[in-house]
């Protein structure tokens, strides 16, 4: 009986509440550490590769037996210790993570004993911010996607490793070449800050104006050579009244300034004008070339060439309207094909043209904006920064580029990376434009270096293209912003000379 007495209702509640209380606390605490990840390095190294192999997507390759020759001096330029586990944290978006696992396998293969832990992520900044603040960042990161870190902020905080050693290292599978010599010229510009390479772009994109080849063939149209031709052509389309000459990604005016405006500016005024903008020189935005380029895109709105309603559409919505042949042209990069794959009519046949220039322009009229996305970085405070660099050497190898082209239908900026791989028609047309440009790869960094200029360009280009600002007003506003940024002591400044 006494035994039973101990379990009165009150006693029962008392004990359970205490138990529940401690359980709840520990749950909350463990949930908290889950938010600010302090990764536990798995000590049982043998289980890791198996786990990685089983969780790899179907597209991931089977274990390979070094399918390409590696020169002896290219085997281990960083003299890596092999008893470590490389902590790689990678954004996993449209490209998936198969190509990352492939590169990890290459690194493991050429350094027997080494383990490369591939952790796919969605929101990069949210997940890794606490690790940067805490001083224990991972060894290599794919900093991409909507929730990525601004590379410039990481650079300003001294959180990124200068990749000079990697750039000078021998390339993995291009004999006799340095790593940097195997990458497309201009493709890594956006990772350069004050002359130092802090980020590497793994996906190559060419940006221009897209149209349906089927539509052009049917009407026996030809792609305009100069901007004057573009406006004249738009006029005839408008007069016919069947479809609008132009549309753009309305709510995201980036496509108009980032792809069209800067390229027009280069073609009017040449590289010097862009360098002056990047270096925040006084009155750089007031250059006569800026006015001409601005008037060129403003004419699209002013003459009524932009599809009605464009300003209210998102990027995918406007691209969908364009695919329905509601407009002839849309500016975009080579990701367009993949992005719209599921809604593209079979006979649409999208191709890219360069930005039509000017007969009397100072820039190379064949020039093109060809850059990269999917920026990979190595944190300066990483435990194994050299292993991180070695990962990038494998990721940007010819073998990896071929895998990327074949399995993800996209390109890496690696010379010879698509040898023997099947390339889509849209990509082919873009590559033809890039090849025609030769070394005239257009480069501007002002929006990349200064977040404020980026934001304000976005806002005011939207206003320009809806007639709320006139070209001269647009340039006045932008000059004022640039002056403010130049005068702000809290904003670290960058320079480039060529």
């Amino acid at each position, binding site marked *: 009986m006494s035994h039973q007495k101990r379990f009165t209702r009150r006693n029962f509640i008392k004990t359970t509440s205490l138990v529940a*209380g401690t359980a709840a*606390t520990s749950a909350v605490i463990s949930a908290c550490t889950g938010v600010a990840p302090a990764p536990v390095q798995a000590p049982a190294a043998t289980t890791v590769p198996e786990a990685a192999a089983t969780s790899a997507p179907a597209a991931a390759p089977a274990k390979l037996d070094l399918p390409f020759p590696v020169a002896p001096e290219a085997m281990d330029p960083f003299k890596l210790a092999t008893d470590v586990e490389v902590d790689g944290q990678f954004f996993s978006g449209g490209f998936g993570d198969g190509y990352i696992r492939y590169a990890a396998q290459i690194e493991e293969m050429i350094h027997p004993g080494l383990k490369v832990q591939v952790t796919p992520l969605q929101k990069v*900044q949210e997940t890794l911010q606490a690790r940067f603040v805490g001083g224990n960042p991972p060894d290599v990161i794919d900093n991409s996607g909507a929730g990525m870190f601004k590379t410039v902020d990481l650079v300003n905080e001294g*959180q990124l490793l200068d990749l000079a050693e990697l750039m000078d290292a021998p390339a993995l599978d291009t004999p006799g070449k340095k790593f940097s010599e195997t990458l497309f010229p201009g493709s890594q510009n956006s990772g350069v800050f004050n002359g130092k390479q802090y980020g590497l772009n793994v996906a190559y994109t060419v940006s221009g104006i897209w149209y349906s080849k089927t539509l052009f063939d049917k009407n026996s149209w030809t792609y305009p050579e100069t901007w004057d031709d573009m406006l004249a052509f738009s006029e005839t389309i408008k007069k016919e009244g069947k479809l609008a000459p132009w549309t753009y990604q309305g709510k995201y005016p980036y496509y108009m300034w980032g792809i069209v405006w800067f390229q027009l500016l280069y073609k009017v005024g040449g590289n010097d004008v862009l360098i002056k903008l990047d270096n925040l020189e006084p009155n750089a935005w007031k250059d006569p070339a800026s006015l001409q380029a601005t008037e060129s895109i403003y004419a699209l709105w002013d003459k009524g060439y932009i599809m009605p309603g464009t300003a209210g559409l998102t990027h995918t919505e406007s691209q969908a309207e364009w695919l329905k042949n509601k407009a002839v042209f849309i500016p975009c990069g080579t990701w367009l094909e993949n992005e719209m794959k599921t809604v593209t009519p079979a006979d649409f046949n999208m191709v890219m043209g360069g930005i039509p220039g000017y007969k009397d322009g100072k820039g190379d009229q064949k020039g093109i904006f060809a850059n990269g996305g999917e920026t990979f970085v190595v944190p300066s405070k990483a435990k194994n920064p050299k292993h991180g660099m070695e990962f990038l050497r494998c990721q940007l190898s010819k073998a990896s580029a071929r895998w990327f082209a074949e399995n993800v239908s996209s390109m890496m900026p690696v010379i010879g990376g698509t040898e023997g791989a099947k390339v889509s028609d849209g990509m082919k047309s873009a590559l033809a434009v890039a090849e025609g440009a030769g070394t005239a790869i257009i480069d501007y960094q002002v929006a990349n270096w200064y977040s404020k200029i980026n934001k304000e360009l976005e806002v005011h280009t939207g206003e320009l293209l809806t007639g709320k600002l006139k070209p001269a007003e647009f340039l006045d506003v932008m000059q004022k912003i640039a002056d403010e940024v130049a005068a702000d002591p809290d904003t670290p400044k960058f320079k480039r000379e060529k």
Partner: protein
Amino acid sequence: MKHGQKLFIFSFLVVPVTVYVIFVAVPYVTSMLVAFTKWRGLSMNITFNGINNFTKLFNDPNFWNALSHNGIALVVLLPVIISIALFFAFLFTQGIRGGGFFRITFFFPQVMSAIIVGVLWSFVYHPTIGLLNGALGILGIQSMQSFPWLGDPDSVFGSILAVTVWQAVGFYMVLFITGMESIPAHFYEAARIDGANSFVLFTRITIPMLWEAIRTAIVFLALGAMDMYAIVMIMTNGSGGPSRAADVVPRYLTESAFQNGEWGYATAMAVVLMFIILGISILSLRFTRREVLEF
């Protein structure tokens, strides 16, 4: 027994109080401190910045622009939502046919998250395939064909406020209906015998008897108007609208922190917003204080 009782109470309190201190009190105090620093949020490199963040805030046109939209929301949403909700509440307590159906229908938007509501209404406002422009076309208003409701600085904030009204009315209607149904029917009967019409019943009996519910609604709506984060983020695709014409303080705050890397500045903004909200709640409670009739 006394000791056991204390221990018993303590065992209940220790967990919530600890959790509250760690996750609410400590962050509040820390953020007050961070507001006086320069911090990019990416390393432990934090430097004291005095009141510079606050002076910068005071001189930042984007902040005033965002705050003005919160202000407009406050001035517009409060009277509009409360009057519409009162109207429908009164209507549906008059025993009209289908009242129950309408109550559920009107309450329904409240059940959906702001994200779903934002996405749905973005389609309604779509320039070419949107319901709104389609309806206007049927009515013969051709000038509004493919008008970008969310792409024009003059219409974007009004369009978003309309959605907020649509979503919130149902909740306050239900709040008022509950209040109205607890008003004793003989008050109305007595007044009616004295010759009062429906309008007099509403203004002289319903409103005063409902005052506590209306007060609650005022405070809730005032707080909601100072927020608006989710709906603005969704309907402007995170940009605050063309020309920042629908920007609100909480959105501009996240832009400062996450996109411009100004965590100290963003925290200063959050602290200022907190005091504004605190002030508004105190003022609205004070100015709406009335003698409550017990019944």
